[in-house]
C-alpha cells in the first residue's frame, strides 16, 4: 500500500530520465523537441501528484455540501499555465527547426555541425 503510494514518483523519475536520455542521444531536432515535451510532462505529473489529498475532490465548491476535502489548488494553477506556455515554446522550437532545415537541408544536429565546420 505504502509502495503503491510512491508509484507516481517513480513514474515521474523514469519519465524525466526518458526525456533527458532522448534529448541527449537523439540527433533529430524534432525528436529533441518531443523529448523536451516528455521531460516537461514529467514535471507536471510531479506537481499534480503533490496536489492530491486522499478522499479529496477537485477544488470547486459546491453549494450545500459541507466538510468536503479539496485537493490543493495551487500546484494545479501553476501547471495549468505552464502547459499553455509549454506549447508556445514548443512551437517556437519547431519554428527554429523549420528555419534550420531551410538553411541547411537537414535537421540532424550532427550533420548541421559538420556543415558548419566544413564551411
Amino acid at each position: 500500500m505504502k509502495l503503491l503510494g510512491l508509484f507516481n514518483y517513480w513514474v515521474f523519475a523514469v519519465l524525466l530520465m526518458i526525456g533527458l536520455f532522448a534529448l541527449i542521444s537523439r540527433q533529430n531536432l524534432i525528436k529533441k523537441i518531443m523529448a523536451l515535451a516528455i521531460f516537461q510532462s514529467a514535471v507536471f505529473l510531479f506537481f499534480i501528484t503533490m496536489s492530491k489529498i486522499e478522499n479529496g475532490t477537485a477544488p470547486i465548491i459546491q453549494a450545500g455540501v459541507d466538510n468536503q476535502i479539496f485537493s490543493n489548488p495551487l500546484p494545479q494553477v501553476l501547471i495549468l499555465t505552464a502547459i499553455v506556455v509549454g506549447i508556445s515554446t514548443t512551437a517556437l522550437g519547431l519554428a527554429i527547426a523549420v528555419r534550420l532545415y531551410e538553411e541547411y537541408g537537414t535537421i540532424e544536429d550532427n550533420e548541421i555541425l559538420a556543415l558548419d565546420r566544413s564551411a
Partner: protein
Amino acid sequence: MTTLLIGAFLLSLLVITAVAIVRATDLFSAVMLSGIFSLLMALNFFLLDAADVALTEAAVGAGVATVLLLAGLRLTPPTEARGRSLRVLTPAVIAAVALLMIYASFGQPSLGDPQAPAQQHVAPWYIEKTPELVDIPNIVTAVLASYRGFDTLGEVFVVLTAGIGVMFLLGGGRGKPFSRLDSNVEEGLSRHLIPKVMARLLVPFILLFALFIQFHGEYSPGGGFQAGAIFVAGIILFSLVRGERLTLAVIPPRVLLWMSAGGALLYGAVGLAGIAMGGNFLDYSVLADDPITGQHIGIIVIELGVGLTVTGVLLSIFHAFAARD
C-alpha cells in the same frame, strides 16, 4: 484503492508510450504517440483531482500540440536518421540518476497524504478564504486570476512573446479578403465527404463549447487558457476541411495580431485600472463599490484577455506553419 490501481495502470501505459516515442524512427508515428501520451497524461491529472489541468492538457497537449507538430513535420523530413551508435556512458548515467531519484522517493510523503508539507502552506488559506473574499466556486480560477494574477499576467506575456518569435522566424500568414476569394477552388479535405460532414456538424459545437468554458470558468473547470485552446482546435478543424484560404478570410491575420496583443494589454489595463481607482496593481476589489463584485468583474475581464491572447497566438502560429511551403 481501486483509483490507485487504475492510476498505476495508466501511469504504466504512460511510460510505455514514452519509450515508444523515443524508439520510433518514423516521426509521424512519434507525433501520433505523443498525442496518446498527452491524452493519458490528461486522464492521470483527472484521477489526481486536477480537473482544470486535465482539460488544459487534453485541449492543448492532445489537440493543438499534435497539429502543430504535424504542421512542422510537413516542412521537414519525416524520418529520423540513426547515425552515431550510443556510447555506454549516457545510458549508465541516466539510469543511475533515475535510480537515485527512486531512492529519494522513499523520503517523499505517500500519494494523498494530508499531512504532506505541500498541503500545509498557503493552500488551506486559499480554500478557506475564497468563498469570503472572491466568492466564486472554482478555487483554481480564483487563485489563477485573483490571488496570483501577477503570475498569470507574466505567463500571458510569455505566450505572446513566443508567438512574436514564431512570427519573426516564419512570417505571418497573409489572407485575402472574403469577397475576392475564388469559391470554386477546392482546398483541404473538401472533396472527402465524411470529414466534411463531420466537421460541419462539429465545428459550431466546439466553438460554442469554447465560449462556455470561457465564461463558465468561475463555476466549473475552465477559463481563458482552456477556452482559447479549444477555440483554436475548432478553427483548425475548419481550416483542415475548408482550406487555409477561407479560414484566413474569415479571421484575417491582422485580427489575430490585434487579439494576441489586445488580450495581454487588456489584462495589464485591468491592473492599471486598479491603481487608478486607489488600489494596488491587479487588485480587483476597488473596481466596484462592493469588493466581491469588483473581484468578479476583474476575473471575467482578465480571463477574457487570457482567452483572446491564447486564441490569437496559437492560431497565428498555426497559420505561420501552414502558410509555409
